[in-house]
């Protein structure tokens, strides 16, 4: 036995040789824990899982480091379908002792058979939904879901017991009994299953007694008015002949009447008993099918609505992107046309400046536009972003703010890392009282150049708007 504080091996003394803690109580608790563990082991050996769980819970309550008790407790839970509970006990057990502990093997086994575990965990989740439905009195939906769970995971005892309860309520005693016998095969000491089974037997006995009490009088043997027959004393020559029950009928008419009465009774039985019962069964099946299909229909409708919304969102996004592309292409095409007009009118310098605005945006142009762009560049020669920027600064210093703003825009379009071009473009628009364009360019500084020196100025301007 090891000390529960420091893990040192304990001796006969009531004090730990290492940490000197008083371990007398712990020793007694551990001994009691082992007693309960042995009892639990015995019960588990005869498949009394419910009883074993109670004993093992006591064992663990007395000594939480009793890994054998914990491992067995986990096994019992796992066998009853409570896989998460079982796994949690194995995890705790492997925490206390990871060397040579079967719990680590159990955990590895569960991880290897992951699909099996996931199936059982899903069954637990569905069972909780069934419980909720049943508590909200949606019994029909609960029963449909419960049947599915019970058929997929027959080892999940809670679900089986609840299904048996539903069958008892519907007086389907034969089905309930079958389920309960299967439960008792897995857990021989399950008190709930035993109680339900005894209730079924009681209800079946009462049903049989009621049936016999309802028998017509001519089938009962209680005729007190039959006269006593005079009996002569027997002599030695008398022959005792057993009384025959056979009586001759009076003739064809009474036979015919009897036959007619028999046919009438038979027809009445069919009409009043068999046909309504068959109709009830058919109606019940139809109703169950209708409800199942309604549930499926509702699920399908939800999926459909969700898919429809996705389509609408994607269409909207596509249209917005298309507008951007079109807008982009349209604006670049316009720049190209302007550059072509400037070239044709002989202003090569201005055409080069205009062309610089679409220098880095070749992908936005179509094939024909690209050909025109290449032709113009080869005839005019390119102009660098720095040259455009220099011209823009010159214009700005000469207070030609409108021309400067256009040139700064072109310089930025040609080189989108030129924060100075952005800043001065914003300054130009600000001085022209074009607050929308100024705000746009200041926002570019905040979004794309957060580390530049112009950030404070940009933020102040935007805050003042």
């Amino acid at each position, binding site marked *: 036995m090891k000390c*529960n504080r420091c893990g040192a091996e304990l001796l006969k003394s009531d004090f730990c040789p290492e940490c000197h803690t008083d371990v007398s*109580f*712990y020793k007694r*608790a*551990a001994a009691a824990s082992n007693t309960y563990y042995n009892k639990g082991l015995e019960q588990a050996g005869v498949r009394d899982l419910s009883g074993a769980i109670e004993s093992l819970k006591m064992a*663990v*309550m*007395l*000594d*939480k*480091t009793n890994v054998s008790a914990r491992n067995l407790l986990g096994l019992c839970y796992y066998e009853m*379908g*409570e896989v*998460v*509970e079982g*796994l*949690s*006990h194995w*995890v*705790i057990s492997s*925490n206390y002792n990871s060397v040579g502990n079967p719990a680590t093997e159990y955990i590895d086994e569960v991880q290897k058979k992951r699909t099996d575990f*996931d199936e059982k*965990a899903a069954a*637990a*989740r569905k*069972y*909780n939904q069934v*419980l909720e439905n*049943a*508590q909200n009195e949606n019994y029909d939906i609960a029963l449909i879901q419960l049947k599915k769970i019970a058929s997929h995971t027959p080892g*999940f005892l*809670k679900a089986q*017991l*609840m299904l048996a*309860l539903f069958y*008892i*309520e519907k007086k389907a005693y034969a089905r309930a009994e079958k389920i309960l016998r299967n439960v008792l095969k897995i857990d021989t000491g399950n008190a*709930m299953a035993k109680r*339900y089974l005894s*209730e079924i037997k009681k209800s079946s006995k009462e049903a049989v007694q009621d049936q016999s009490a309802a028998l017509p009088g001519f089938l009962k043997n209680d005729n007190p008015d039959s006269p006593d027959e005079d009996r002569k004393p027997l002599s030695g020559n008398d022959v005792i002949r057993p009384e025959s029950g056979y009586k001759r009928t009076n003739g064809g008419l009474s036979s015919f009447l009897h036959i007619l009465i028999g046919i009438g009774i038979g027809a009445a039985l069919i009409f009043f008993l068999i046909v309504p019962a068959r109709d009830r069964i058919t109606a019940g099946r139809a109703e169950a099918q209708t409800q199942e299909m309604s549930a499926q229909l509702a699920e399908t409708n939800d999926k459909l609505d969700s898919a429809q919304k996705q389509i609408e969102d994607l269409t909207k996004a596509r249209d917005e992107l298309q507008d951007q592309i079109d807008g982009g292409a349209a604006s670049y095409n316009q720049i190209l046309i302007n550059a072509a007009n400037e070239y044709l009118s002989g202003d090569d310098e201005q055409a080069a400046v205009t062309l610089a605005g679409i220098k880095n945006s070749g992908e936005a142009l179509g094939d024909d536009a690209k050909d025109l762009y290449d032709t113009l560049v080869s005839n005019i020669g390119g102009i660098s972003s720095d040259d455009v920027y220099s011209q823009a600064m010159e214009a700005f210093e000469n207070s030609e703010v409108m021309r400067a703003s256009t040139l700064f825009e072109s310089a930025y379009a040609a080189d989108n890392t030129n924060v100075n071009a952005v800043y001065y473009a914003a300054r130009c628009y600000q001085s022209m009282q074009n607050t929308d364009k100024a705000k746009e360019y200041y926002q570019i500084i905040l979004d794309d150049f957060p580390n530049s020196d112009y950030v404070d100025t940009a933020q102040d301007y935007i805050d003042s708007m």
Partner: protein
Amino acid sequence: MINFEEELKKFRPSTEADEAEKAVINNNSPDMTDLFYKMIEDVDLHIVKQRNS
């Protein structure tokens, strides 16, 4: 005689996979030995306080 609603109330929810962490914490609660040592500590503390006052 089985009362359906009363029997239904006896069914408790099953632990789901999402609640595994909570299950580990709940199942690893202090045992009798922990409670006993805690009581001893509380008694010791009480005695020390009385001596100091």
